[in-house]
């Protein structure tokens, strides 16, 4: 929302980030995004992340590829009509190899397309509400609150052991990047 203020809680430990997600979930503040340097099942559980649909993209890619491979092999074979040792021009047994290869290829395509589509990538505004330290070892919890309640949100994040940074419009990413890395309290 236009008048919302954004605060980032930065954590060295996974525990702190998980606790902050839990505390924010019980408050009236909104969690915008959570950053993790490594895949974290605990964070995913705390956020109650739903099962990804990427698998479905992969499956559809694979099924499409299977039939596409067969059709390509049938199409190319039928262009020449060469009969070799009495075997039919369109033979499904050898075309299975092409079908199999295309299954793998298009399943991978489906997987990548699904991943990009579902994560809304690529993004031009990725540096908005981002802290360079999140590319290192820090966990980050970005939370939003209505204007005037920033101190309340900051206090909540600090109680979980966060190093809190206000992600307001007057705090451009360049300035954040230039700031030296702070030791965790």
């Amino acid at each position: 929302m236009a008048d919302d203020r954004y605060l980032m809680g930065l954590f060295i430990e996974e525990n702190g980030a998980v606790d902050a997600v839990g505390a924010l979930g019980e408050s009236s503040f909104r969690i915008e995004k959570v950053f993790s340097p490594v895949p974290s099942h605990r964070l995913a559980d705390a956020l109650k992340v739903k099962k990804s649909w990427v698998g479905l993209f992969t499956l559809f890619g694979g099924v499409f590829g299977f039939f596409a491979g067969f059709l390509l092999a049938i199409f190319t074979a039928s262009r020449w009509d060469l009969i070799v040792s009495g075997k039919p021009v369109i033979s499904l047994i050898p075309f299975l190899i092409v079908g199999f290869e295309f299954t793998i290829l298009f399943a991978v395509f489906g997987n990548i397309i699904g991943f990009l589509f579902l994560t809304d990538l690529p993004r031009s505004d990725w540096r908005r509400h981002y802290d360079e330290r999140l590319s290192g070892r820090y966990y980050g919890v970005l939370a939003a609150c209505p204007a005037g309640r920033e101190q309340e949100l900051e206090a909540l994040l600090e109680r979980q052991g966060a190093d809190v940074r206000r992600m307001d419009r007057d705090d451009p990413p360049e300035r954040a990047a230039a700031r030296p890395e702070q030791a965790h309290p």
Partner: protein
Amino acid sequence: MTEDHAIDRAGKSRGARTAVTVFLVLTAGGLAAFIAGVLGPHPERAWQAYLINFLLWTGLASGGVLFSAIMQATGARWSGRMAGIAEAFSAFFPVSFILFLILFLGQSYLFPWLHEDLHGKEAWLNVPFLFTRDAAALLVLYGVGFRYLYNSLQLRFGGASAGGRRFREGLQRRWAGRRIDEAAVRRRATFWGLLYCFCFVLVMSLIGYDLVMAADPHWISTLFGAYSFVKAIYLGLGGLIITASVLYLKNGPDSGLTKDHFHDVGKLFFAFCLVWGDFFYAQLVVIWYGNISEETAYVIERTMLAPWNRAAWAVLLICFVAPFLILINKKIKTVPPAMIVLCAVVVLGMYLEHMLLLAPAISRSPANIPIGILDLFVFLGFFGLMAASLMTFMTQFPEVARLRKREAN
């Protein structure tokens, strides 16, 4: 022991006795049907059913024990109590060996090459040599299997009470008389487990070549041995999942099994569904490209000509396409009743697959697929033998089926 416990235990042993009785009745029914078939107008049909069942259940038993040996050899812990359940299949080994020896009586029906000109293959394909080498190979496989089992059981139950079971008391006395160095026993179990894996590959390949591929002595596939032992692993995993699922449904959490165990072993079953399909296709595509008449005649008869073409499609659907599509789903692998149905269907599909490979050579040019009530009875007879063997093992080692009280707590 409290009165309640005594009643509970008496009820369980009564239940076990009833189950063994049912299995033995099935076996007796199978035996009666087999004898009636042998004395009837088509003895080749009875011997064909016997051979198919021998191959099916022997593959299943040796493949089941292989799972435990692999877990031991690789130091895997994810399988938990599944490995202990897999060892129960070893109780079928002596039965399998006796069943193999009985095949000798049906040689004139089971080996169509006895009446053919073998063009120099007589040195390998003659009955005395075939039975000697196959019996020796099975003895080695089962001997190594029992040696592995001895060490594995010592690791699992070395310190437990025998509970008045005679065979187990003998083992416990033997173990008690020696100082048990756990690390040494573990090393021995790993060694014999690895040796079992090696023997399994060789012996299952040999049995595949001698009892299945040789039925058509002019057809050769170098991949057939590998195809045979991969099939035995696939069958073994199916049998293991069925047994574990039954124990889980009967004993619940007391079985020591969890959904994760079923998920993991289900993934392995899925993987071997793919490997079996791969080997099936790898043989087929090479023969298709080579297009040599000695090779293609075998495949054409079984996949393109009636009545076998229907069976070939059924095998492909039952043993590969259906399990592949169903097992893509994660949840189904964790539902024991569903897995019982799926694995049982795959085992039946493998029965049909053995029939597809053998029956065209044994039952020459039938109008329909030669399957009937006789085949059903013989199948149930072998099933009864396998189930009674498993029950016998679990009577001696009840911890395989149910956690001890101390473990459960």
